[in-house]
C-alpha cells in the first residue's frame, strides 16, 4: 500500500553568506570574537500538510523558486524536513536532473549499471533490463564510448532510458517531459504515460499545464514555500492561469500556455515514424 504523509513539514535552508570558510579563518574569527560567516535562513517549505494514498496523481505547479523541486527532493528523502514529519510507505523512483549523476569516464553500458544499482537493481536483474534500456535510448554503438564524448541530448536519452526502466510504487517526476529531440520526446511521453498508468502513486512537477491536466487528478499550487491552493486539477490550473494573466498580462498568458502550443506543433503520431 503506497502512501505519503506530510504533517506540518517545514524545510529551512541555512545558507552561509560567503561560501565556505577555511578552518584557519574560522579559528581566527572565533579568537577575535567575531561572528564567523553569518547564516541566512531561507524558508523553502512552510507548514506543508499532505496525505496521498494509492492511486493519487498529484501535480505541483508554481513559479520558479516556489519550492516545487525542493518539495520533490524532500519527498524522495534527499532533503530531511527541518520540522514536521514525513512518512513514506513504498519504493520510490525518481526522475530529477536527468543529465546529472553520470561518470564521465565510464561507458554508456557501465553507467547503465551504476544507475541501475543505485535504483536497487542487482547484477542479475539489471542484465535482463540492459538490452531494453539500450534499445530505448537508441544510442547503439555509442554505448561503448565514455560519456565524455556524448552530446547533452544523448546524455538525456540515456538518463531517461535508465530512470524509467524501473517500476517503482511511488514515482516522483521533475520536469522531464521535454527530453531530447522531437522523435524522442514522443517516445518519452509514451513511456511516461505507461509509467504513470502502472505506478501506484505519482507526484510530478511541471510547467506543462496541459500535461498536468491530463495526468493528474489533484494539483497543489505552491507559492513561496506554502500551499496556496489545493484541489482537483481543472479548478486549480484554471485559477493559476487566471492569476498568471492578471500578474503578467498577455505575456504571462503566453508563458502559461506555451507548452501547450509547443505540443500542438508536434506532428501527429501516425505521420511520424518512430522506431520502437
Amino acid at each position, binding site marked *: 500500500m503506497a502512501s505519503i504523509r506530510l504533517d506540518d513539514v517545514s524545510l529551512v535552508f541555512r545558507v552561509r553568506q560567503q561560501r565556505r570558510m*577555511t578552518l584557519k579563518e574560522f579559528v581566527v574569527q572565533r579568537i577575535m570574537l567575531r561572528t564567523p560567516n553569518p547564516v541566512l535562513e531561507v524558508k523553502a517549505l512552510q507548514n506543508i500538510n499532505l496525505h496521498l494514498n494509492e492511486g493519487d496523481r498529484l501535480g505541483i505547479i508554481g513559479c520558479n523558486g516556489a519550492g516545487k523541486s525542493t518539495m520533490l527532493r524532500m519527498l524522495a528523502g534527499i532533503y530531511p524536513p527541518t520540522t514536521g514529519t514525513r512518512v513514506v510507505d513504498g519504493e520510490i523512483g525518481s526522475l530529477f536532473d536527468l543529465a546529472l549523476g553520470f561518470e564521465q569516464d565510464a561507458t554508456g553500458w557501465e553507467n547503465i549499471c551504476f544507475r541501475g544499482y543505485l535504483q536497487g537493481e542487482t547484477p542479475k536483474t539489471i542484465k535482463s533490463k540492459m538490452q531494453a534500456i539500450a534499445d530505448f535510448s537508441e544510442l547503439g554503438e555509442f554505448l561503448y564510448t565514455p560519456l565524455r564524448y556524448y552530446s547533452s541530448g544523448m546524455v538525456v536519452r540515456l538518463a531517461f532510458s535508465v530512470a524509467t526502466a524501473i517500476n517503482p510504487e511511488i514515482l516522483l517526476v521533475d520536469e522531464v517531459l521535454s527530453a531530447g529531440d522531437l522523435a524522442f520526446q514522443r517516445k518519452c511521453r509514451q513511456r511516461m504515460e505507461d509509467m504513470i498508468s502502472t505506478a501506484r502513486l505519482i507526484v510530478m512537477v511541471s510547467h506543462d499545464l496541459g500535461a498536468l491536466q491530463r495526468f493528474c487528478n489533484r494539483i497543489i499550487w505552491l507559492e513561496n514555500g506554502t500551499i496556496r491552493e489545493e484541489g482537483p486539477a481543472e479548478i486549480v490550473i484554471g485559477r493559476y492561469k487566471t492569476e498568471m494573466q492578471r500578474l503578467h498580462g498577455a505575456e504571462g498568458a503566453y508563458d502559461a500556455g506555451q507548452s501547450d502550443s509547443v505540443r500542438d506543433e508536434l506532428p501527429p503520431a501516425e505521420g511520424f515514424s518512430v522506431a520502437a
Partner: protein
Amino acid sequence: MSNYLAAIWKCRYFWLAMVRMDLRTRYRRSVLGIGWSLLQPIAMTAVMCTVFCTLFNETLADYAPSLMAGFCFWNFITTATSQGCSCLFQGEKYIRQYPAPIAIYPLRAVLGASFHFLIALSLVLMLRIVMKGFDNIPALLIHLVPTLFLLFVLGWSLAILVSFATVYFPDTQNITEVGLQILFYATPIIYKPQMLIDKGLGWVVYLNPLAAYLQILRDPILYGVSPPVQAYLMAILTAIVFAGMAAATLLQLQRKIIFQL
C-alpha cells in the same frame, strides 16, 4: 546502527562497481598496470635501503622488508585520508539524487586503498621469504586477520571523519597532509622502534597508536613472533575511538550534509 549497516549492504553493488571503476581507471592509465603502483614503494625502499642500511648498521635482509611494510602501511593511511577528503564531492551527483547512506562514499575510498595495500603487502611477504626463508611465518599468518580488520576499520573511520570535515572546511586536506607528514617521522617506519626506546624516547612509540598498528603488522610476518597483547589493545582501542567518532559524525551530520555540498 545495524539498520545503517544493512542499508550499506543493500547498495553493495553500487559501491563495489564504483571501486572496480576506480581501480580500472587507475591501472588503465599506465602500461604496467598494477606493477606501476608497486613501483613507488619498491623504488622508495631501494633508495632508502642503500642509505639507511649503512647509517643504522642493518642488514639488507632485515631492513628491506621492514621498511617496505612500513611504506605500505603508511601509503594506506595517506591514501585513505586523501581520497576520503574528496569522496563526498566525488559522490555529490549521487548524493543529490538518491538517499543512499553517506558512509558508502568513504567506503569506496578506503576499499580502493585496501586493494593496493593487499597487493603491496603480498610483495612484502615475498620479499621476506626470499631474503630470510619461511621460518614459522605460515603459522603466524592468522594474525593478519585481526590486523587487517582493525586497519580497515581505522581507515574507514578516518575517511568518514575527513570527508565530513572537508565539506565544512575546505582546507582539511592541507591540514591532514601536514599532520600526517609530522606523524610520519614520529612513527617507526624508516627506523625501528627499538632505536627510539634505547635512546630514551620510548614514549613516542608507546603513545603513538600507529606504532602499535605497525607492530601487529610487522611482528608476525617479518620477525616470526606473535605481537604483544598491549599492541593489540592499543590498536583495538584506537579503532574503537575512531569508529565511535565516525559513527557520531554520521549520526549528527549524515542528513544535513546535503545542505553543505
